[in-house]
């Protein structure tokens, strides 16, 4: 697992990439939440294959409909 996201990275990303400033002390609080979310994506991404694309979502919904002869 990579090193946790730091408050300094949150601050710099907000100011340099997103062009806004977090309230005082907020970068420290966000660092843990952002670490958890990005770790979740990292961990799950190992499953991805060539065939995985966003359009599989509606396809899976339509494909998963109850069959007409089901109870």
């Amino acid at each position: 697992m990579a090193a946790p996201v730091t408050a300094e990275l949150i601050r710099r990303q907000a100011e340099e990439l997103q062009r806004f400033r977090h309230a005082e002390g907020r970068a420290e609080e966000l660092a843990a939440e952002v670490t958890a979310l990005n770790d979740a994506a990292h961990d799950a991404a190992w499953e991805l294959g060539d065939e995985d694309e966003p359009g599989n979502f509606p396809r899976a919904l339509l494909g998963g409909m109850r069959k007409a002869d089901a109870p």
Partner: protein
Amino acid sequence: MTWRLRWPDPAELSLTEAADAVRDGSLSSLALTEACLARIEVHDPKLKAFISIEREAVLEAARRADVERAAGRIRGPLHGVPLAHKDMYYRKGHISTCGSKIKRNDVPDVTSTVLARLEAAGALYVGGLNMSEFAAGPTGHNEHYGDCRNPWNRAHITGGSSSGSGAATAARLVYGAMGSDTGGSVRLPAGLCGVVGLKPTYGRISRYGALPRSWSNDTMGPLCRTVADCALMTQVVAGADPNDPTAAAVPVGDYAAAADRGVDGLRVGLPKGYFADGVADEVARVLEEAAGELETAGARIVDVLVPDLKPVYRLGDIISKSEAASYHGKWMRSCPEDYGGHTRTRTEAGFHIPATHYLDALRLRGRHIEAFLATVLTACDVLLAPVIPMLTPRIDETAFHDAGNVPEVVTMMTAFTRPMNYLGLPALSVPGGFGPGNLPISFQVIGRPFDEETLFAVGGAFQRATEWHDAAPTL
């Protein structure tokens, strides 16, 4: 008629009964509307369910509906029935605040498909209902319009974000209301206020003209006092829409008939693992008793091991926060002070999720749906689950104090609801009993994509066997 003896106040009729009464002429639309307005006047100051009330306009619409009926013209199945909706469904030329300071004076130039369909069916519009600011919180707090209060016990939250929809429907201020559900925002207020709420399949009901929270997770759904009412409202608003390309061209079922058809032979799953671990005793008891009622009604109860859905929850959260940050970016840069604490802190992390991770979460979605269908929803036809794992929290214990101190209970509130938004599956919240503090406890019925009919069948069978839905709060 028997209902006159049971419910001397017309506001206490169900939506279906109210619509029938207008249609057969036993009650006027004006009588229904005046009854609702009278209750709103007395009780809403205590509940804060409404943001706006269009008293004169709805009375005029009711008189018009009565004239039309007298002339033999019935617009549709909701002719003359007063409803109100989460204040995020746009109406051309009318303010939709979205529960925010930022949109306090915002006048949309479109009308949402949902409201257009309700109006075409004859429904009347009483007003805009309170909600979590920008549909962003699971509790029902609102720093701009006041915290909505649970009609059963006003010290407790309604659940959110469709807080006013739950409170107004439970308190008999209106016969039903539309809400929206991105991570539980219909099911939570329905569940905590003791009414029925549908989170439909993604794509079942058009999102056009409604405030977005997360385009990929947003669903629009009704909150009503009975399953039959919910089926009726869904019937009116569901279906494809050229204005919303994600509204699927899947035929709309006969939901009213489905609510009556029973559960004979249906395999109803009782969860083990996720949806069962760490659940409060009272909540678990309601779920088991609901299963018992359904078994008596003819269903077959099967134990189903549900895998850990925390990864699914987090992937849904990544999508929601990323999309919310995109939607709110311009205001968070220009007027961050106009946001309440709940909303700001539930959105900011989205600015720090790389686009690659957002896309990975989207790419994984089809895979996770197929896995859930192949395991859980192959072992059963529908799955029962609690709406929340704990008893309904108080308003003060879930209030926002500072960003670093968002109570753990708030985070836990969506543990059982958000996964179904990522998976896109339909879920119906049904009241199943009461817990300490005279507060409702509800359960969800989760089904296959676009199979709202089976959810209504299960909910309808449960309500025919029980009387929880007839209980009304003392205000």
